[in-house]
């Protein structure tokens, strides 16, 4: 394929040596556990080679790529409209949120702006994707810690949001609803009213989980002080989203960066906690779901009327240029660096996914903890495999 230069050869040798290092670890004394690629706690195909002394972790080496689909390469052979189908599958629990930054980046290059109604609907669906995503986390964290009941409540109540997403976009999981310059369709009749009703239910769900899990003494004993990430380390590793805010860094892209979406038109609060442990991360995400329901409520009331599509040509050619747009996705900062040469598809797309950075801290964080805490930390960092492997 390529003619390996000296440096290439050297790098392959170093790769072989590194692989050999893993093999040596497996043969050496102490237990080596392969957490994954198929393990109940990784909810996907992440493999973590954990070396144990008794139950204490000596070293942990995450091995990812079992689900690598090469999206960055594939975007180079797709048109802009086709790319959104792909990137829907990055974070599959909050799919709509993946489309938005890419479309915004393309719009930025084309110097097109979607009409206000489209921005409002985008924001509502974005926040719904956040609720759909984080409610899984809220339940699943319980399962990881042995409480099996919350996850069923989460999946039960998540259905309200998924049904709304389905009735608006036609797809429960992968809406593929966002278009350059606007949206595919307007909202169905009565959707805003049923949305507000569903938000009441979601707030009730948050209260329920707060009583059931957050206030549970065993849950607190398992989470408090486990997996503490100081703010400077979190920034150094590029952690984002709730993982960063739980470490006391007050940064939310929705508030702090200029964005065409409608967050700036509503009154909401960015929650920040200082502890930086697993409990803080859980608590923060719970509050964020609640905050999202308030954002959606306000947007439903203030939604402007008008068209949902700006004037864009039928065949979309994005003028040459580079643009980076990031948004505060359910998992953290997601960004697309789109380079266009004026063709039908992007020349290069760098997809910055939050989970990739979020779990790159694992080797540092897992050192010296007990095996059960590995699970707590993995669950509380909250990654989605499609988001790591792209």
């Amino acid at each position, binding site marked *: *394929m*390529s003619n*390996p*230069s000296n*440096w*290439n050869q050297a*790098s*392959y040798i170093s*790769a*072989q040596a*590194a*692989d050999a290092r893993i093999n040596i670890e497996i043969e050496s004394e102490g237990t080596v556990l392969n957490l994954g690629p198929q393990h109940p706690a990784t909810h996907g195909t992440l493999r973590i080679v954990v070396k144990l002394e008794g139950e204490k972790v000596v070293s942990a080496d995450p091995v*990812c*790529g079992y689900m*690598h689909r090469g999206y*960055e*390469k594939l975007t180079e*052979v*797709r048109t802009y*409209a086709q790319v959104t189908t792909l990137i829907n599958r990055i974070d599959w629990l909050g799919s709509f949120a993946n489309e938005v930054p890419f479309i915004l980046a393309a719009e930025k290059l084309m110097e097109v702006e979607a009409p206000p109604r489209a921005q409002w609907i985008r924001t509502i669906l974005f926040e719904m994707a956040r609720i759909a995503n984080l409610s899984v986390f809220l339940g699943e964290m319980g399962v990881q810690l042995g409480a099996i009941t919350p996850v069923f409540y989460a999946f039960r109540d998540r259905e309200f949001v998924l049904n709304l997403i389905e009735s608006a976009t036609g797809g429960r999981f992968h809406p593929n609803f966002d*278009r350059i310059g606007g949206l*595919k369709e307007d909202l169905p009749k009565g959707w805003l009213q049923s949305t507000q009703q569903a938000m009441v239910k979601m707030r009730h769900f948050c209260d329920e989980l707060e009583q059931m899990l957050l206030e549970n003494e065993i849950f607190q004993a398992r989470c408090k002080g486990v997996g503490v990430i100081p703010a*400077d380390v979190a*920034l*150094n*590793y*590029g*952690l984002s989203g709730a993982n960063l805010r739980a470490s006391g*860094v*007050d*940064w939310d892209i929705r508030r*702090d*960066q*200029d964005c065409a979406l409608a967050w700036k038109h509503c009154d909401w609060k960015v929650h920040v906690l200082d502890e930086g442990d697993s409990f803080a991360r859980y608590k923060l995400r719970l509050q964020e779901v609640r905050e999202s329901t308030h954002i959606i409520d306000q947007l439903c009331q203030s939604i402007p009327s008008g068209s949902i599509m700006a004037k864009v040509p*039928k*065949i979309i*050619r994005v003028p*040459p*240029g*580079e643009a*980076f747009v*990031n948004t505060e996705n359910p998992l953290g*900062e997601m*960004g697309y*660096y789109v*380079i*266009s*040469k*004026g*063709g*039908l*598809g992007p*020349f*290069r797309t*760098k997809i*910055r996914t939050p989970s990739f*950075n979020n779990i*790159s*801290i694992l080797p540092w964080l897992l050192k010296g903890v007990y095996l059960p805490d590995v699970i707590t930390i993995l669950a509380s960092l909250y990654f989605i495999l499609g988001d790591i*492997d792209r």
Partner: protein
Amino acid sequence: MTEENHLSTVSDLFSDTVAHFIEALSEGVLQYESKEKDLWIRVKNSSWAKAAQVAKSINFNYFCFLSGIDWKDNDELGSEKLWQAPSESVESKSSKPPPKLVKIAGGQSRFQVFARLFSIEKKLGLFLKTDLDEKDLVIDSWSHIYKGANWHERETWEMFGFVFKGHSDLRHIYLPSSFEGNPLRKDFSLLARQVKPWPGLVDPEDMPEQPEQSNSKQSNIDESSNNSDNSEQS
């Protein structure tokens, strides 16, 4: 260009930052440009690690990502070349001026490494770019300055074949360790596309009013995306 000229191209938000970089790197800073709240700086290959230290010292402490670009236009890719701008003959009706420079903050070689840092305090973004010599794809590692760069450098090494000097653990992250080749280089062709063009671009049937045009791929592409647009809106 003189320093004064440079400074005039960036917004006031960044004048301090740029001044810092020029002071610390002097010759190392090649070009810079700002757009909204982001600043692009292209530095010399030899100043790459130094640039990260400077950025960290002036509070660009959030590491966002690091990756590479291959600017090559590969004419042999055939149906893969969707990114290509249409030639003048096809798009003769467009009266727009010819497109401006693609590379923000410029570049000279085929390969570039670029990274984004962010300052939480100032709420400003910083892109650092550097050119790589095609014959000698070596660059200093950031992994001891920004811990998060570790995995990104592994990914970039794997996808582009850039070697990060000083990286302690340069091994495959996504691909199996026996994988050969650098998938994100433009000369790495997708095998499936060589056998069969991407079906999303091929019309199942030709448009009735248009005669069959098997030679002109470009117009085929146009029709197909036109079709898909129609079907989505109906």
